[in-house]
């Protein structure tokens, strides 16, 4: 018998611009102890559909239909009846553990009040149950952490706390709304592992809402695919992945870049040349670059502490080459990008562009050099001035660097470049907020492209976008690269995307380089323990493979960059660490054709 049966669920929102029909005639059921995945891109209605079940829609939202749970219709229940179910029978965890816990209350306050709201137990009993649950979600030193405030815990730890509080009353159903999206891959792997384990142990049914097909492949038994409010397909997980019926599902699967496949030339259909360029003269070389930020210390006489965001990074980039830079948040990859284009001052090191050192240049030449080095940013909308038209935004580099051009030729150049990235010339007079995220990123690319640069630094250019849009932008960048012989520095936390686009890949951890290798070497023969852990943490959108492969789960969290470990910075989380690792910092050394910074890289490779 099914635990939850949803029929003809419709969710509508009243907005000033008219009604938005967010979920259309959705129906599904959930059995006891089952894991159900709901997959979709943004705007697919996947979150709204479950929020409506618990009566948690925003004020302007209305739900219609039926949702039978234990012989009651959730959608018809009064608020007070629903409240009894929420948190005790059906509980929910959310995407952002950072903001989903109340920053003003201790973990203890927030957890015990859930227990005491639904059951009459003593404070002491509630407390014990909470600590027990914290231990069950593998929080070390649970008792001490229990009295902490959320901001004193790491992101992964906070999501564990969220999970613990949602399981306190042993609910029938746990709804997890993008529970790992805000987390780093290594932490995501830990959380997914935990959820799998809890599902086994307590028999809690899980509804997992996600945009990430890899996550679904590893965790769910059945899957719903949603698109624009409609259910496109539902079925067993293996059917969905190996025998997708609906066109949309198929395209979605194709759009996902994968770690386990040969580099496909195009994510979306089409062809291009993916030949690794001849190692020519380096366009850009970075030599022992360091960036430090002063963080004011606390305490009366404490001076400022130095945060070494980038601590001695060297790299070189040839024409037509793509260098991928990966690492978890806080590894300094974005700071590196900003330091190269001089958005943040470097504290040591050299940056040479086209064979000339940038610091040695006078203003004018520097300005000229800047034309050949451009950057695109992570948040497409935020990187466009909301008060300027798209035409003006793309024209600005020309105004700055080619003041000799008259209006007509500026307009012509801008139209050409916009059309090249897929924005029609007639949209020149529109404003950024009238475009979608993907289109905004195209405009950002056009702005970088209009000066015909040699190098573009891409700082997480696709991580704010949906999978299918991601694929289009990546394809566009690869096209542009082969058309104009662009060199790219492609910074991302998503290893699969990086694998797809890069010729060489650099792995960073806490401001330093761990490994640099060609794409093939890095993904097939990772030399550094950190690289291996990263790769094994990335979920693969293939249920059989994902469930059968062996993982090297990383334990623990990223240490504070203010106070990095001595010796090898990775040693606190490295399973191969030896005494020498704490005493001596490993140098970046050549092992076969790979540059790696690990004392044991050699014996690890030999097995």
């Amino acid at each position: 018998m099914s635990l939850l049966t949803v029929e003809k669920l419709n969710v509508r929102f009243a907005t000033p611009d008219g009604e938005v029909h967010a979920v259309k005639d959705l129906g599904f059921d959930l059995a006891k102890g089952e894991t159900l995945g709901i997959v979709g891109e943004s705007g697919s209605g996947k979150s709204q559909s479950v929020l409506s079940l618990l009566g948690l829609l925003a004020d302007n939202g209305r739900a219609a239909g039926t949702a039978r749970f234990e012989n009651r219709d959730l959608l018809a229940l009064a608020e007070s009846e629903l409240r009894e179910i929420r948190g005790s029978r059906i509980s929910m965890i959310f995407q952002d553990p950072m903001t989903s816990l109340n920053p003003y209350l201790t973990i203890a306050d927030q957890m015990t009040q859930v227990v005491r709201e639904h059951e009459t137990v003593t404070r002491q009993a509630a407390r014990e149950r909470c600590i027990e649950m914290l231990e069950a979600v593998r929080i070390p030193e649970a008792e001490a952490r229990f009295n902490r405030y959320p901001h004193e815990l790491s992101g992964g730890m906070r999501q564990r706390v969220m999970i613990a509080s949602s399981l306190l009353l042993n609910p029938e159903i746990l709804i997890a709304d993008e529970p790992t999206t805000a987390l780093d891959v290594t932490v995501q792997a830990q959380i997914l592992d935990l959820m799998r384990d809890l599902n086994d142990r307590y028999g809690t049914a899980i509804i997992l809402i996600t945009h990430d097909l890899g996550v679904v492949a590893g965790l769910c038994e059945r899957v719903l695919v949603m698109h624009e409010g409609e259910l496109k397909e539902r079925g067993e997980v293996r059917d969905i992945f190996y025998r997708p019926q609906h066109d949309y599902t198929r395209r979605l699967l194709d759009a996902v870049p994968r770690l386990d496949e040969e580099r496909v030339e195009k994510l979306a259909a089409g062809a291009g040349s993916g030949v690794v360029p001849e190692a020519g003269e380096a366009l850009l070389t970075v030599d022992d670059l360091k960036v430090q930020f002063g963080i004011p210390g606390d305490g009366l006489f404490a001076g400022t502490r130095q945060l070494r965001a980038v601590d001695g990074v060297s790299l070189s980039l040839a024409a037509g080459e793509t260098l991928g830079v990966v690492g978890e948040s806080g590894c300094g990859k974005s700071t590196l990008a900003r330091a190269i284009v001089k958005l943040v001052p470097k504290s040591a090191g050299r940056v040479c562009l086209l064979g000339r050192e940038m610091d040695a240049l006078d203003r004018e030449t520097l300005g000229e050099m800047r034309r050949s080095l451009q950057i695109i940013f992570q948040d497409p909308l935020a990187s466009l001035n909301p008060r300027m038209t798209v035409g003006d935004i793309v024209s600005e580099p020309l105004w700055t660097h080619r003041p000799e051009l008259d209006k007509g030729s500026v307009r012509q150049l801008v139209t050409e470049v916009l059309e090249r990235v897929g924005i029609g010339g007639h949209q020149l007079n529109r404003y950024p907020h009238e475009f979608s995220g993907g289109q905004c990123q195209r405009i950002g690319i056009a702005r970088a492209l209009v000066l015909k640069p040699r190098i573009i630094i891409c700082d997480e250019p696709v991580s704010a976008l949906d999978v299918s849009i991601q694929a289009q932008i990546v394809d566009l960048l690869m096209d542009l690269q082969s058309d104009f012989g662009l060199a790219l520095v492609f910074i991302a936390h998503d290893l699969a995307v990086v694998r797809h686009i890069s010729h060489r890949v650099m792995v960073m951890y806490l401001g330093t380089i761990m490994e640099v290798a060609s794409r093939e070497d890095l993904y097939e023969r990772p030399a550094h323990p950190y690289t291996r852990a990263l790769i094994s943490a990335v979920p693969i959108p293939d249920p059989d493979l994902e469930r059968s492969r062996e993982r090297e789960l990383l334990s623990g969290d990223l240490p504070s960059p203010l106070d990095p470990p001595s010796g090898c910075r990775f040693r606190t989380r490295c399973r191969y660490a030896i005494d020498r690792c704490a005493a001596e910092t490993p140098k970046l050394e050549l092992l076969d054709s790979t540059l790696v910074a690990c004392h044991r890289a050699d014996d690890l490779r030999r097995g």
Partner: protein
Amino acid sequence: MLRYTVRRLLGAIPTLLILIALAFFMIRAAPGGPFDAERALLPEIEQNLRAVYHLDEPLYLQFLRYLGGLLQGDFGPSFQYRDFTVTELIMAGFPVSLRIGGLAMLLALAVGVTVGSIAALRQNTRIDYSVMSVSMTGISIPNFVMAPMLVLVFAVYLGWLPAGGLGDGSFANLVLPVISLALPQIAYISRLTRGSMIEVLRSNFIRTARAQGLPERKILLRHALKPALLPVVSYLGPATAAVITGSVVIEQIFSIPGLGRFFVQGALNRDYTLVMGVVVFYGTLIVVFNLLVDLAYAWLDPKVKYA
């Protein structure tokens, strides 16, 4: 915490010094002098008076002398109220202003936060609109209009309350001045509370609390109130300092012997020491209340820590 407090108070010394210097030289730059009103003064007598008050010395000496006095807690004698020292005048006026102003702020805080929270909870309903319109009226009607109106209605027409004077300081005498002072503050505080409360209620952790099955009342009191109060606390610091140092208007309309009138009279009569006294007093209060605000922040917000 203690260390932080001490450090902050030490840090306020230069601020106060600059403040004192600014006020000192500005008031002296104003045309006219403290004895202008007494036209009949013979030149010799005026000369004598100036000597007694050291007004014949060079300005910088006067300034140093004044600072020296301040260090010993001496604000000097008043020029206008010849028989009193400035300290005595302040100590006479402040308790009155403090009582009325303090009551007004307490009232404003209680009513403002309650009304603002209700409006936020019932956002875009009729309750919300009416609360906000009323509070807008509170902001838009200046207290020198509101106070006489209140007097007209409650004292003159209805005869329920005395029209003015402190009388024996009984409750009835305090009602109208306190309400007149509190009304604009209620308006500000309720608008502030409503705004921040709406924002807090939209935040993710409130959604979490709802998803955990907590009832609205507990969500409001336990989860939302604290963060929603933060902006109110910031506002409260300087506002309290201003309100408890008295309001000229209220004092004039209700004939209350508070501190507020000294700000105006002192400046108009070039009563140098009196002006300086109230300015220093006010400045110190501002510094103290800003410190209190920051300490309150540390208490309300666990992320804020003062070592």
